[in-house]
């Protein structure tokens, strides 16, 4: 169903390049130790402050997050204006690309990635000439529909003038060429990189709607399989998974959609709010559809916005009914199991909901950062509050992937199972002998049926944690006995 409408472009979120970092825009922090109830309360009251660690382990940076989204656009090219080491994540995105293409029955090809390979000479004399050369190379090799130029610490510190270089090239080549302000040092909250990528897409790619496609729902996501269809198609809606594995043409028209939703509220907060503000596409503000209550609420809001109120209750009841017998079995299986979640918000909050619905007891969680609010500003979208109704007094911390804190904390809490996201962290957990469940497909636990999928997967791992047992017997963690006897957050200093 499509309808012709007259659209006047509204005022935009922000037309100038760059994006205000999350610390300033959303009051985001990376260090906290307390309870969900307290964190929700002080966030709402605007009293949340950052606490800096006196000791840290390697985090992640905005450049990683920005490139992950952009490098999977199938007909664009990403140029990293950086020394070659910043392209250490290219092979990962390339694998995501090839693996994802395979799952989607597309031709498998390498991700389109180029580095300007900045060297010492460039840091002294500048490298905009090299950048132009890279743009020409990208154009002649791939004939892309758009080029994204991601900034780096080095390009930022030496003061490279990306904008005028890109404007010049854009005029010459006639395709959008967008700068992506993702210098690593600018933010300790690597999710700022998502915002930088989406800002580039909003500024340079998305066009005002010529028609409306109310049945089409933008779903801002990573690389997971399309389980959203299970929730949307019965309501007569069609999920449009963005940004990975799209083409530029598809992104140009996201302004035509009936609504925007996300698999993780912290991932697409900037994009979804921008689409609403700039193009009038309403954002589903309820926490994403994970867990029984979460899925109910999300579906109701979606149905309300898209005019499906009349059929949604029947669908919810039917789906809940369909999974009930298997869910009961899983709940019996997991009764008394103590679980812990280490992940990024808000997907981590979604995982907390799933585990509780599967009958586990949450003994604690740590999230890689915390946003005091989201871009839409509506407290009803608070995923932490939604996930901890009834469990708001557990141990809760914000810890940006600090393995030393996590290990220390887990030794005290002694959970039976840990859900862990973010590559390279699972092995620290597993060395403690605790089943470390790394769920890479963020859609696995989606909706009602996802609870069953997720539960079955975890049950298999939980039944035979031989890898964890082997590691705990033979492979040491690199921490001193002294450290393991300290309080887990004793390196977390006073307010910054």
């Amino acid at each position, binding site marked *: 169903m499509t309808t012709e409408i007259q659209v006047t472009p509204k005022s935009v979120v922000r037309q100038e390049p760059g994006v205000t970092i999350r610390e300033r825009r959303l009051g985001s922090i990376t260090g906290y130790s307390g309870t969900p109830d307290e964190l929700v309360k002080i966030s709402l009251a605007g009293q949340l402050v950052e606490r800096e660690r006196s000791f840290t382990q*390697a985090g992640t940076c905005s450049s990683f997050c920005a490139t992950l989204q952009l490098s999977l656009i199938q007909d664009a090219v990403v140029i990293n204006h950086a020394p070659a080491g910043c392209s250490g994540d290219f092979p990962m995105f390339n694998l995501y690309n090839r693996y994802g293409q395979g799952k989607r029955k597309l031709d498998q090809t390498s991700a389109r990635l180029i580095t300007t390979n900045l060297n010492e000479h460039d840091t002294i004399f500048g490298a905009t000439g090299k950048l132009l050369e890279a743009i020409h190379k990208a154009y002649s090799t791939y004939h892309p529909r758009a080029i994204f130029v991601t900034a780096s610490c*080095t390009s930022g510190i030496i003061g490279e003038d990306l904008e005028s270089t890109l404007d010049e090239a854009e005029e010459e080549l006639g395709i959008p060429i967008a700068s992506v302000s993702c210098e690593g*040092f600018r933010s300790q909250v690597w999710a700022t990189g998502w915002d930088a990528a989406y800002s580039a897409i909003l500024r340079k790619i998305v066009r005002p709607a010529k028609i409306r496609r109310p049945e089409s729902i933008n779903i801002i996501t990573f690389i997971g399989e399309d389980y959203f269809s299970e929730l949307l198609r019965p309501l007569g809606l069609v999920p449009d998974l963005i940004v990975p594995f799209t083409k530029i043409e598809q992104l140009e028209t996201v302004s035509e959609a009936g609504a925007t939703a996300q698999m993780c509220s912290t991932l697409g907060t900037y994009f979804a709010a921008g689409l609403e503000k700039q193009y009038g596409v309403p954002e589903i503000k309820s926490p994403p559809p994970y867990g029984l209550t979460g899925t109910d609420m999300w579906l109701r809001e979606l149905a309300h916005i898209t005019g499906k109120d009349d059929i949604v209750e029947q669908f919810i009841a039917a789906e809940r009914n369909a999974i009930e017998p298997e869910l009961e079995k899983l709940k019996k299986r997991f009764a008394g199991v103590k679980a812990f979640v280490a992940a990024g918000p808000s997907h981590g909050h979604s995982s907390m909901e799933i585990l509780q619905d599967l009958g586990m007891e949450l003994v604690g969680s740590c999230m890689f950062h915390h946003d005091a609010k989201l871009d839409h500003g509506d407290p009803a979208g608070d995923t932490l509050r939604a996930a901890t109704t009834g469990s708001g007094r557990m141990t809760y911390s914000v810890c940006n992937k600090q393995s030393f804190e996590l290990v220390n904390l887990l030794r005290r809490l002694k959970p039976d199972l840990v859900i862990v996201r973010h590559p390279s962290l699972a092995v620290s957990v597993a060395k403690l002998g605790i089943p470390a469940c790394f769920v890479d497909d963020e859609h696995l636990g989606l909706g009602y049926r996802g609870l069953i999928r997720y539960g079955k997967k975890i049950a298999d791992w939980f039944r035979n944690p031989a890898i964890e047992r082997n590691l705990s017997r033979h492979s040491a963690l690199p921490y001193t006995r002294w450290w393991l006897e300290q309080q887990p957050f004793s390196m977390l200093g006073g307010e910054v």
Partner: protein
Amino acid sequence: MTGIVQHPRHLCALGGQQSVAAIERAIPILHTGPGCGFKLHTGLGSYNGFQGGGYSGGATIVSTNTGEKEVVFGGESRLQSVIDGALKIMDGDLFVVLSGCTSELVGDDTEHIVAEYRRRGTPIVFAATGGFRGNNIIGHEIVANAIIDQLLEPRDIIPGLVNVWSSVPYHDTFWAGNLASIRELLAGLGLKANILFGPNSGGLEAWRKIPAAQFNLVLSSWTGVSIARNLNERFGTPWLHWPTLPIGGIETSRFLRRLQEFADVDTTIATSFIEEQERSFHYFFERAADFFLEFRWDMPSHFATIADSFYGIGVSRMLTNEFGLLPLHQFVTDDPPEEFHESIRDNYAQIAPGISSNISFTSDGEEINQVLRAVASSPPIILGSIWDRDIAKEVGGCYLSIASPMTDRLVTSCSYLGYNGGLRLIEDLYSSILTSIQ
């Protein structure tokens, strides 16, 4: 090769963090931005044969995660705070502080700060590995030379002890296996290899023993030469440079005879070891020959390597001189310093009597693709990195990953060095071809 690169195969000097993580109980401390450690671990470790983080790599790497505040006001006090924490929290014998782009560009005096800790008796050194200084192979050399310069004292010579400078940890996906193979080959000649990286290499104590070596063995086309020169200047240790990967029967025996001569090993011992190894190699070669002879009608005759010069030369020699293949075009991707270009060219020019190979010094994906499109008149064998799968498919060739980055293989102890390493490469190559045709 300081220009722009499509599909880079080498990262930056800070990649030396992986060499630190490869030393038993050594702890890397990065004075860098928040994403560097993870990116380098990703490119050199996890998405390169899924080698993982090990004891002190991956998520456990210490880092100052420099932010806006450090960029504006300097990051020296932050560095001190993180080193203080590391010395209490991290259970290690050796600490290596590596500087990245950010701290070097803002001018932090990391060297001075680290020297202060060392003066107080901490086994800690500083490596200037700002990413813009060069690739991760250079970073590996910077790390080794930093430990040598800042920590080592003269020792009495231990006869038969040989320091080995060869495969770059993690970057060479087969480094751990290769170093173990070198240790076995040297043991066959009665020499004791000090391999310095990987399992059972001895950690800090092995590094302290470096000045006690009878000689240094640089088994690489150029990597490690700066280390051997440094050790020669500092401790007067002689060194042998063998630029070709000893792989297969001919190349391994050639290397061992030179080593025997240089190390003055008893000829009888050496000859008996070499003969025994060759017998074993040729036993398997003879049995596999039925396959080679009866399947080659439909197998490629030409091959291209897209790899570090060390690998490219060795593999080219073995495939040509023992398996009857013909070199199509070889790509040298590791950006060797100018002084080594001529010897590398010479080496490729003399693969076999009357057989040489055209070579290009490049790691740029598109440049490689263009050459291969032009020269591949029949489907070739392509030995490269994951980036080369598309061109292999395009020219109808067969493909095996032997270079970083490598995401289509899980690598643990596999070695492509020595007699068995040669057989292993052939097994892997033809197994992949056999899998692809049925």
